[in-house]
């Protein structure tokens, strides 16, 4: 056996980076031994259930608990009045606002939490909810965000009246939350004033919900004797929750243990801190027994988090060749009744200013006004980095409108405006530095793969026959991996992340991270990173996350930050261990460190075959034979503060056929090329992309949280809220290019959100394209059959 073969075999045996390793976490899930929050049952545990408001806006005149309390098995009924002495009837939000834990004199949205019932089992709790009598005086609801700042608009937040200095800016109206701007307004306006061509498109990015199959919940357990509080909860950011719980309760962080056990999907829904969690914690502290609160599906869709709800206008000034000269974006953001957006503190509109996309835009201006309405709070990033889905949507839609106006093909207009490969790192006019990319290559690869000219020819023929066929194209750039602590923090904590790696004497590894997996496969992929860095097989590397008592502090998993930040911390921590291992190897081999070469899983003395020490041998020596003056052991911690975000990108193409009699859209083909830099596990990447595409399909084609004029939520069950089944879901085709991030230790950028971010405007692009020859430039989502059918009727296509 030649040495070269051996080296390759040893490398393959590690199952490290680049390997489609089967997932380590699967073993428990396929046996039904996963442990989710609702699976946790503690001795003496009680159950909490919520009394919720039937009205969107009303004053609470009285609450009568007597009948509920008389029901056998009911232990307590708590209202804002009961929480007031503890100062827990309101809580701070991540966005610098406050939110009522239980409605304080007023309700601000339908299904708002008014009282919490604690009972011996969930059936009794549900019975008691119906027995709590609440008398309301209805107030005029504010549902239309466009009317929020009218002089005669009903005032929602009486607690803020007269407080015109908001968390992010001066407030112009009692229903105004903030104004936020980026870019150079005057310079942008000047370009628009003298441009050859200007296009402007209004679009509404509707309110949706991430709807993971596991709803939110928690089990709080306070030990009155030792003062320790343990909370199991569905959180994408357990360490932040610990800090917040400690600040709210006054219990030291060392006595607060937050555990995110297995999480049944997050998608942004499980970033926030919800009244139900707080009520379970308060009830456990007061009663001294464990209390469980788990919401049902209706509560989930109605109250814990929403996403989007951006009324946007995209405007491009260009020359007659379609070259962009300036971009202007204006947004009216509906934040609901409390500003509970989950964004880095300094960015009330998230990273909306990534809206220059993949294009070389000389100057731009973004203006965002956030307003209160009588709807649930939230504003989470549904499978995306903060507001990046909105940013990508507005630029990609407006690019299509520009192409249409100039009668330039939508692939060609993008090609003309792309940031070129040689321009990276590229500083955008709105302040970001795109780290790496080769957009032209990616576009060409997709157009070749689908035979784009043939598709256009087919479309022409179909149009001649009166059939509706559309081709959607999107060339998106994301910004993920929040983020550098110089501009990203949550409640003052910088958005670093962490890894702690321990190599045991026999050479196996336990590693813990500050992130938390929700299906992304961290237990497999982090192990693969360590395997490649340390030369220890990934099977021998155990990964643990989510328990604040054991894991190092981290900001959690959302905004595709696990690989860009947690993955970087993992690689750097492993390299610290490798550096120490090199010293030990030099000591064992009695050579200088410089005489050693690292090869897969061992250090070899240069030019002396056979003189080598494997990582396993070094691990053993680390516990009994280290160089003089060196401390024993082999472990390292890294808190990684990224120098920049990462900027994954992709090119997506979608082909649809629309039935002009029913309005039904059939997605015939969806081709997704992603560039996420270095690929850790191709199997998992493909899985993430399939899932993200399907969630994008859901948003574009059917999901919405619609409200009537009274503020009643009209679609909060899975009967109404669209979650695609096997039948509707298209077949996905995936492809990739690899352009590593230059600043990331292993060159990886993050991938799981790209398919959601990129596919949504692609579906719209395809549906609109089916009508573009008839002068249609934009159609608002969701593109369900009824709405598409209405467009067909307006155009009288079936006459």
């Amino acid at each position: 056996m030649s040495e070269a073969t051996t080296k390759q075999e040893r490398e393959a045996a590690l199952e490290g980076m680049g390997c489609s390793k089967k997932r380590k976490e699967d073993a428990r899930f396929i046996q039904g031994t996963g442990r989710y929050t609702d699976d946790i049952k503690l001795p003496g545990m009680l159950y909490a259930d919520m009394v919720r408001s039937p009205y969107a806006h009303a004053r609470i005149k009285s609450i009568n608990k007597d009948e509920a309390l008389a029901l056998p098995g009911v232990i307590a009924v708590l209202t804002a009045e009961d929480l007031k002495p503890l100062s827990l009837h309101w809580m701070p939000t991540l966005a610098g606002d406050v939110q009522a834990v239980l409605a304080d004199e007023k309700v601000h949205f339908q299904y708002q939490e008014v009282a919490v019932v604690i009972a011996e089992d969930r059936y009794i709790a549900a019975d008691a909810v119906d027995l709590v009598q609440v008398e309301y005086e209805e107030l005029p609801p504010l549902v239309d965000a466009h009317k929020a700042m009218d002089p005669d608009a009903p005032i929602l937040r009486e607690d803020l009246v007269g407080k015109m200095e908001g968390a992010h800016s001066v407030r112009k109206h009692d229903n105004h939350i903030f104004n936020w701007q980026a870019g150079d307004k005057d310079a942008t306006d000047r370009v628009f004033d003298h441009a050859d061509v200007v296009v402007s498109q209004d679009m509404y990015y509707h309110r949706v919900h991430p709807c993971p199959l596991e709803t939110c919940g928690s089990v709080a357990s306070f030990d009155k004797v030792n003062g320790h509080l343990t909370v199991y909860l569905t959180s994408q950011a357990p360490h932040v929750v610990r800090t917040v719980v400690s600040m709210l309760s006054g219990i030291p962080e060392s006595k607060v243990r937050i555990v995110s056990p297995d999480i049944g999907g997050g998608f942004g829904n499980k970033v926030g801190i919800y009244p139900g969690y707080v009520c379970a914690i308060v009830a456990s502290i007061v009663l001294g027994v464990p209390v469980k609160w788990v919401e049902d599906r209706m509560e989930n869709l109605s109250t814990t988090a929403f996403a989007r709800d951006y009324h946007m206008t995209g405007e491009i000034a260009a020359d007659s060749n379609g070259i962009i000269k300036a971009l202007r974006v204006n947004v009216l953001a509906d934040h609901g009744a409390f500003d509970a957006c989950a964004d880095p503190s300094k960015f009330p509109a998230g990273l909306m200013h990534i809206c220059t996309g993949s294009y070389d835009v000389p100057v731009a201006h973004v203006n965002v006004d956030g307003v209160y309405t009588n709807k649930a709070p939230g504003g989470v990033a549904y499978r995306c980095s903060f507001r990046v889905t909105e940013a990508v949507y507005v630029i990609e839609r407006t690019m299509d409108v520009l192409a249409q106006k100039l009668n330039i093909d939508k692939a060609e207009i993008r090609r003309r405006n792309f940031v070129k490969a040689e321009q990276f790192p590229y500083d955008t006019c709105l302040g970001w530095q795109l780290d790496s990319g080769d957009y032209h290559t990616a576009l060409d690869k997709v157009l070749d793969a689908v035979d784009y000219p043939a598709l256009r020819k087919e479309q022409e023929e179909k149009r001649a026959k009166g059939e509706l066929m559309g081709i959607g194209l999107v060339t998106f750039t994301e910004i993920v991996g929040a983020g550098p602590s110089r501009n990203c923090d949550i409640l003052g904590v910088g958005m670093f992340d962490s890894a702690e790696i321990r190599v045991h004497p026999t050479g196996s590894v336990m590693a813990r991270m500050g992130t938390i997996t929700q299906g992304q496969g961290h237990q497999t992929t982090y192990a693969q990173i360590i395997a490649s860095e340390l030369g220890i097989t990934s099977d021998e590397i155990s990964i643990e996350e989510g328990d604040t008592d054991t894991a190092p502090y981290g900001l959690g998993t959302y905004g595709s930050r696990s690989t860009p930040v947690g993955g970087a911390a993992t690689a750097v921590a492993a390299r610290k261990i490798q550096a120490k291992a090199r010293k030990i190897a030099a000591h064992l081999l009695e050579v200088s460190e410089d005489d050693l070469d690292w090869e897969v899983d061992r250090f070899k003395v240069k030019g002396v075959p056979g003189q080598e020490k494997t990582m396993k041998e070094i691990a053993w020596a680390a516990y009994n034979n280290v160089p003089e003056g060196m401390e024993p052991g082999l472990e390292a911690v890294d808190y990684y503060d990224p120098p920049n975000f990462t900027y994954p990108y992709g090119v997506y193409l979608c082909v649809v056929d629309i039935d002009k009699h029913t309005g039904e859209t059939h997605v015939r083909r969806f081709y997704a090329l992603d560039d996420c830099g270095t690929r850790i596990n191709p199997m998992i990447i493909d899985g993430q992309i399939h899932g993200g595409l399907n969630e994008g399909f859901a948003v574009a084609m059917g999901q919405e949280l619609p409200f009537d004029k009274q503020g009643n939520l009209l679609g909060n069950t899975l009967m109404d809220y669209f979650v695609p089944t096997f039948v509707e879901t298209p077949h996905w085709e995936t492809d990739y290019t690899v352009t590593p991030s230059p600043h990331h230790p292993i060159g990886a950028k993050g991938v799981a959100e790209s398919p959601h971010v990129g596919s949504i405007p692609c579906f719209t692009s395809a549906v609109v394209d089916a009508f573009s020859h008839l002068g249609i430039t934009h159609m608002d989502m969701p593109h369900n059959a009824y709405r598409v059918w209405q467009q067909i009727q307006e155009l009288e296509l079936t006459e």
Partner: protein
Amino acid sequence: MAKQHISFNLNGKQVDTLVEPRELLVHTLRENLNLTGTHIGCESSHCGVCTVDMNGQSVKSCTVLAVQADKTEVKTVEGLADADGLHEVQKAFVEEHGLQCGFCTTGMMMRAYRFLQENPNPTEEEIRWGMSGNLCRCTGYQNIIKAVQTAAKNLQNANKSVETA
């Protein structure tokens, strides 16, 4: 409310227990019998994460009363593997990366277990319709379809080798 006595075969073992007349089977399984592999996602029969097998049919245990399980045979994910090891459906879900967060997986596998007895050699289209009562938010279904196809193939091969043996 007076409790009712029910007696049924659960994963091959006889179970006797007292339940409230209004109690849902999923709660009996999870709370009373501590089999938490069966999950709750919507409590309205839409999502299928609570799917179990009852008298040879897939049922959504969030809308079956526990009293309806009296004198039946129920199989949950905990009963899918046997003394010989994992069921082919379980192995195929791992092999084809047919799961991510794992929450829908147990119900999904219980449906696949029954579906492949109803239709041992399904086309992709038949899988899509036959499994459509079970939702997944993570996978985009594509790898679940592959898993069901792989399980079908392996189950058929296993049956063939039994026949020829």
